[in-house]
């Protein structure tokens, strides 16, 4: 049981158990994953930075702790791939951007601290769309990541590095951030599990901001239970984040261990289908709804008319906030500086640095946000977008009076080819059609695999949406659906992925 192939196929829960019981050491587990990264990441490109020494040091510390009989956390010694958007003291943090290339933060994000405190082993930092802007990870300044199911396809984005690391068994756990779907959409297209917790559940302190009122960190894993275990480690109140929820974390692990939809009311929103949805996606989604019925759920049809405006509102709010959040990257205090040859003023150096340091999508969104906030346009664009936000929240509230959770496809299509939508921003934005309403309203959602689309044999994701603060419902439903599918397929979906 100690050969590397078996170790990397274990779930996080199994790995933690084996380390706790002494069947495996944390160092063995870490080395197995480092070896896997060595073997496949040249092809996948999930990692921007592998912290070999740091990871092994953490692993050794776990083994020493265990040897001394000290109490270990529930995920002690389990390796994790951290999205390169969280600051890590002494370890490079780039946010997928040239503008931060080589920056070594002098502080840890709260999430980083929590992972370390829980004895989770951080393997390294994963690739992402620059500043989390994108749905394909093609916008990374450091090159795209391949989808382990088909390396010519995108792994989703912005957290494509994290999802690809999971799907290629380079790590059993990963962290993502979800502003418009950047945890769920990558999970969907790679056949993994991703959760966007309720806004405010996971501290944003040390998570490089894209759109402050939408960004939310969350767990990524290969199973619902693993996601729940990680959720419990990273969630909870943080006095350093004013928008952090000061309430107990919902019982997500308990819910994941007791999956059931018996007697639950499950909503299906009519706005989440139609034009632009791939046939195979709709097919797998409809089968999932049938499965839910078989498992004892009652299906309720819902009408959420304002969801049709969600994408538009999102593409005003997120760029507006980002245009302000990214102003600090000016080449004066950290990161890239361009044009400082004695002939340029500070302003010129800032403009040259930002021109050289930001990629096209980031510039596009900064320009869009600058436009939407400028005087004369504010009310029509930003102001209206905020009204849409209210309407979407009301649609959710009304819906959750009738149902316990809502389900939908996570994304309208399976993974598309790298390069296919690269120069068509509007086509790219459609990937987040089903995920965005949740970010705008702040409630919780999960994506988990519900099969392969018959036409391309690529994973399809089922999205489960719960009211704010009811994150446990995601796990209760998710665990039931996952168990039913695994039973139906005879194995987890990822078993069907190529071995690389």
């Amino acid at each position, binding site marked *: 049981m100690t050969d590397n192939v078996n170790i990397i196929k274990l779930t996080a829960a199994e790995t933690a158990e084996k380390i706790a019981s002494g069947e495996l050491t944390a160092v063995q587990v870490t080395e197995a994953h480092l070896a896997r990264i060595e073997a496949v990441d040249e092809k996948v490109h999930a990692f921007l930075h592998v912290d070999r020494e740091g990871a092994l040091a953490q692993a050794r510390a776990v083994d020493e702790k265990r040897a001394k009989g000290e109490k270990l956390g529930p995920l002690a010694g389990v390796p994790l791939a951290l999205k390169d958007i969280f600051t890590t003291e002494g370890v490079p943090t780039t946010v997928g951007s040239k503008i931060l290339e080589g920056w070594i*933060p002098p502080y840890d994000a709260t999430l980083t601290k929590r992972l370390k405190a829980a004895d989770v082993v951080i393997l390294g930092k994963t690739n992402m769309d620059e500043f989390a802007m994108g749905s394909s990870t093609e916008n990374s300044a450091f090159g795209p990541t391949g989808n382990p199911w088909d390396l010519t396809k995108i792994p989703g984005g912005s957290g494509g590095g994290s999802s690809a690391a999971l799907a290629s068994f380079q790590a059993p756990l990963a962290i993502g951030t979800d502003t418009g779907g950047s945890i769920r959409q990558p999970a969907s297209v790679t056949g993994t599990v991703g959760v966007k917790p309720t806004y405010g559940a996971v501290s944003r302190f040390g998570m490089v901001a894209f759109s402050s009122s939408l960004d939310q960190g969350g767990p990524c894993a290969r199973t619902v239970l693993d996601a729940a275990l990680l959720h419990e480690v990273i969630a909870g109140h943080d006095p350093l984040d*004013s928008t952090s929820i000061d309430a107990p974390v919902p019982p997500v692990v308990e819910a994941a261990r007791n999956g059931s939809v018996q007697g639950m009311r499950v909503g299906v929103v009519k706005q989440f289908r139609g034009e632009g949805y791939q046939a195979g996606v709709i097919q797998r989604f409809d089968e999932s709804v049938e499965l839910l019925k078989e498992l004892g759920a009652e299906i309720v049809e819902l009408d959420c008319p304002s969801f049709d*405006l969600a994408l538009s509102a999102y593409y005003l709010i997120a760029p507006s906030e980002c245009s302000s959040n990214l102003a600090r990257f000016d080449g*004066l*205090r950290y990161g890239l500086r361009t044009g400082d040859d004695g002939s340029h*003023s500070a302003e010129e150096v800032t*403009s040259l640095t930002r021109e050289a340091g930001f990629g096209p999508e980031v510039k596009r969104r900064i320009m869009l946000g600058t436009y939407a906030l400028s005087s004369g346009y504010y009310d*029509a*664009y930003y102001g209206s977008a905020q*009204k849409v936000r209210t309407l979407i929240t009301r649609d959710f509230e009304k819906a959750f009076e009738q149902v316990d959770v809502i389900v939908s496809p996570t994304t309208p299509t399976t993974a598309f080819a790298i390069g296919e939508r690269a120069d068509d921003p509007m086509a790219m934005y459609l990937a987040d059609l089903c995920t965005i309403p949740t970010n705008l309203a702040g409630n919780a959602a999960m994506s988990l695999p519900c099969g392969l689309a018959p036409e391309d044999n690529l994973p399809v994701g089922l999205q489960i949406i719960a009211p704010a603060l009811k994150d446990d419902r995601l796990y209760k439903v998710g665990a039931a659906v996952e168990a039913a599918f695994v039973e139906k397929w005879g194995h987890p979906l990822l078993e069907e992925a190529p071995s690389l």
Partner: protein
Amino acid sequence: MPGITREEVAHLARLARLELKPEELDHFAGQLDDIIGAVARVSEVADQDVPPTSHPLPLTNVMRPDEVRPSLTPEQALSGAPAQEQQRFKVPQILGED
């Protein structure tokens, strides 16, 4: 409403401190126009009597006590500085008001 000109793009770029290249000005003018055209739908609700939501959390009054916490050391603070002098961040000349 849309119809973003090259000049408007140049103005936005100055506000955003982006030294865009001439070809970028044209490229963005077209793309921003498309995107704004598509998202302008939100103004359908402009005259509706709906309060705006700027934030998904209904929290208020999150404050901290006025107690000193440790700062970074000057060395840490300056660790990422592209240039420094006299324990300060060194920046090119500022065209300011004087």
